[in-house]
């Protein structure tokens, strides 16, 4: 038997989670229910968060978005496409329309699958995960949130409350390779964000390591190149060698495996291609001059 717990407020949800740390939170159920159906886990209880209204809200204050953990992908796409373009692009690649209506970014973080579509976009955009328990609230940068295959930094009594991201101040891109043109789990994925105000580049790699991860050396290389050449304030087309080197460094940052979806060698190769192409797209966008730091 499994208990099905349905709190109607956030405080009640946190209280239940502290009393029943074995309860598995469920929002859209697009990951949890699959695991239950396959009998991969049999939790003592399910903690249904769909009745906690505040989880399904987002707000913007001082150029920063607080995205409730229960906001479905479909709303990220329709309501936050301008503010969070990278995350909205990643959301567009999630499953089918039905899945996007149910699935949430909070759920993606809770499952912490290396193949989760939102992770590369969250990493590239420097997202911070707000987690809470009856003991209080913690802010965990996305890069520190993923701790292993399908493991995250949550304590047993904690729930994911929200995700905090800056409203984009530079172009962002997301691309994912799958062997079908829709409704496909990533063979590998890549997120890229330019942060012109900080003269910095953000990256995220998906499905090519035990956890989603940043390509730090690639970020440093590209940030350095852009800064050294004064390209942030006076953008000019990038050389092929810069784009190629960036791709190589992204590929090197991955630790892929051979599995049923693709080979390790292909994943590395494809990541280099995605990195090069997404860089081309963000840089073309940046050169268009519509971004404040560029004016």
């Amino acid at each position: 038997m499994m208990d099905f717990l349905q709190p109607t407020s956030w405080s009640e949800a946190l209280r239940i989670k502290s009393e029943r740390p074995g309860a598995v939170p469920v929002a859209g159920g697009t990951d949890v229910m699959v695991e239950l159906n396959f009998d991969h886990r049999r939790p003592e209880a399910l903690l249904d968060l769909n009745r906690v209204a505040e989880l399904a809200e987002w707000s913007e204050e001082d150029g920063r978005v607080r995205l409730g953990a229960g906001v479905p992908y479909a709303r990220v796409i329709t309501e936050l496409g301008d503010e969070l373009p990278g995350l909205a692009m990643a959301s567009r690649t999630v499953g089918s329309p039905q899945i996007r209506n149910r699935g949430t970014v909070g759920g993606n973080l809770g499952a912490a699958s290396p193949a989760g579509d939102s992770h590369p976009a969250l990493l590239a955009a420097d997202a911070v995960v707000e987690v809470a328990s009856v003991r209080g609230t913690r802010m965990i940068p996305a890069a520190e949130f993923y701790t292993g295959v399908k493991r995250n930094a949550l304590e047993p009594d904690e729930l994911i409350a929200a995700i905090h991201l800056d409203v984009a101040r530079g172009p962002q891109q997301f691309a994912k390779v799958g062997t079908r043109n829709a409704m496909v789990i990533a063979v590998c994925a890549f997120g890229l964000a330019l942060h012109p105000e900080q003269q910095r580049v953000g990256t995220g790699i998906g499905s090519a390591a035990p956890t989603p991860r940043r390509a730090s050396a690639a970020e440093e290389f590209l940030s350095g190149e852009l800064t050294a050449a004064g390209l942030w304030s006076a953008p000019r087309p990038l050389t092929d060698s810069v784009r190629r080197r960036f791709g190589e460094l992204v590929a090197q940052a991955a630790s892929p495996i051979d599995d049923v979806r693709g080979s390790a060698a292909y994943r590395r190769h494809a990541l280099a291609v995605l990195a090069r192409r997404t860089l081309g797209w963000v840089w073309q966008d940046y050169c268009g001059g519509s971004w404040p730091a560029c004016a």
Partner: protein
Amino acid sequence: MTQRTSARDSVRELSTAVTGGIGESPRRPDGTLKVRGEFAYSSDLWHEDMLWGATLRSPHPHARILSIDLTEALRTPGVYAVLTHEDVPGENIYGLEHPDQPVLAVDRVRYQGESVALVAADHPETARRAVARIKVEYAELPPVTDMVAAAKGEGPPLHPDGNVVRHLKIRRGDPEATADVMVVGEYEIGMQDQAFLGPESGLAVPAEDGGVDLYVATQWLHVDQKQVANALGLPLEKVRLTLAGVGGAFGGREDLSMQVHACMLALHTGKPVKMVYNREESFFGHVHRHPAKLYYEHGATKDGRLVYVRAKIYLDGGAYTSSTPAVVANAATLGVGPYRVDNVAVDCWGVYTNNPPCGAMRGFGAVQAAFGYESQMDKLAERLGMDPVEIRVHNAIAEGDTMPTGQVIDSPAPVAELMRRLRRLPMPPENREEPVDIRDMPGGVSNTTHGEGVVRGVGYAVGIKNICFSEGFDDYSTARLRVQTVGGEPAALVHTAAAEVGQGLVTVKQQVVRSELGIERVTVAPMDTTVGNGGSTSASRQTYVTGGAVRKVCQTVRQRIFELAARKLGHGPDGLELAGGKVVDASGVVLADLVDVLGDDVVEETEVYRHRPTYRVDSETGQGNAHVQYGFAAHRAIVDVDTELGLVKVVQLDCVQDVGKAMNPQAVVGQIHGGSAQGLGLAVMEEIQVVDGKVRNPSFTDYLIPTILDMPPMTVDVLELADPHAPYGLRGVGEPPTISSTPAIVAAIRAATGNALPRVPVRPEHITGT
């Protein structure tokens, strides 16, 4: 349909007085329910007080069973029965033509997923948990997994007669023939799944007479009945089957799955028992398409005329026989494709291994061979600097030509015409509009390219398929028809056992009765075993054979009605016609309303229809008239390939097919769309990945089938060149479009990339070389 060629005059002029007859596209009787999601599929079956069955399956591809301990499973509260091979009441064996598969494993398992024990419980979850508590001690054995080695007799035998199920040779002309140019190729086909959406399911209800009523989604009620009765040790009349709603089949329901199991549990517990496989179990619960390895050598003259074809074809049948002998026959007899070749030597082997059992799937045997011979035709064209359409037209078989089996094609075989028409169909615009819609790009919504690395390619292919059962099989169907007055109107009830699996036979049966008898109101009775055998819903045969049976029974019923009319009207039965609910004379004068002729009489007749006989082929030479009819389709594929990432977008997929007579044009085009999509799946994504006899991807997460963003719009050109030997001149439709779709798409990818691509499905790594 863009073009029609009129049927030959041998086809009877059909009555036009009623709507919804032959040649029209009336609504399916089950269409509205299906579109609204209200149609009851077999998985929706329910009975008061029913139990749920579950199956324990082998985790090993090859092992001895040392012991089975049921204690803990039997102790589980809510469990009513736990059964093993010792509880099989009749013969513990089943199989389509060559029974060799145990209902429940005795002392050895030969594939991962083989059924070992059964549980019935009051809740499906309880049944599953009890299954997990059955303790089986196995001694693992090394699995036989290499089909070529198995064909050569290497490795331990899995069955008493060794591991070769069938070796068929086709020999024609000079085995030593030489030619100006020669091309060789080795090709491989991965294991495709039928991927029907409605999983295996059914409900067995024990009856007071000691028998059982089974409601089940299947393709062939009577062959199920025979096997179930044999395994239950019951006479046929005590095992009654009714077709439940079928959610797709494609060959995967021709073999038994849960039929005997549910009946065993029902008879043992005295309660109705329902079994429904989940998606993962479904991958282990039915046979798949035979993986194949093909070795071809084609010789041709300098001007591109085929001189000889030599081939060795290996088909992996997995652990049990299933349909392997027929798959071997198709691959061998159709192994050179729809081409004139005077010198042929084909060797085809179907073998046992410890891989998942393979059997019927849409186009079987012909699909595998076509990937080989069409790849070879392109290779030959390239060697000779010829156009791929030209070389096919140049060598195309035609009516009056002789197949490598010696069989003379005695009905239209418009292969050259299909190719010419295909080439004339409009091409998509060369230049993309800016900005690109990523849904039109390789990678689709995953946003992998905005045009970078994308190269377009065009490919052509044509295929051949035998229609109906071959090699001397007594292939027939039975139809019962009742005509009476209902509510002041003439009404017909048509009853067959031929399984409706989604293809639209229910509609065709109505159309035939409407056209033959001029009665608009035609009800289709539920399909069950209270009427005679309808044969299998496979081999593209139901419209031909069951359609033929319905036509025949209409003719008999019509004669009975004329006899009635003669008695009542004082007019001789000769020269009467039925039209629009009236009895008319030869000059069209209305003599009486049909309702008045019928009065309170009920006219009911049953007829059996057989197509003309076929014959076994000589096992050393393959010579013989094995097939009753051939079907032909051709495809042109236009693809965009992201050459850096190895991703493919099929931009356009066009098909030209001869169907003899389009009984229901909308259903015909639907079959061509569906078959083409299934061929697209095999070309670029669909494969059950098997390593050391174990399935790595038994889910729709990792076994991918095409979505609407993978399957492009199609231009379909249907020809109607009547076959004088077939009812209404029709030609089976369902399989041919599956056959040429795959090689056309791969040819287009080759054209875009320059890669050899000897294996399907083509994976990104095959294109990028990483």
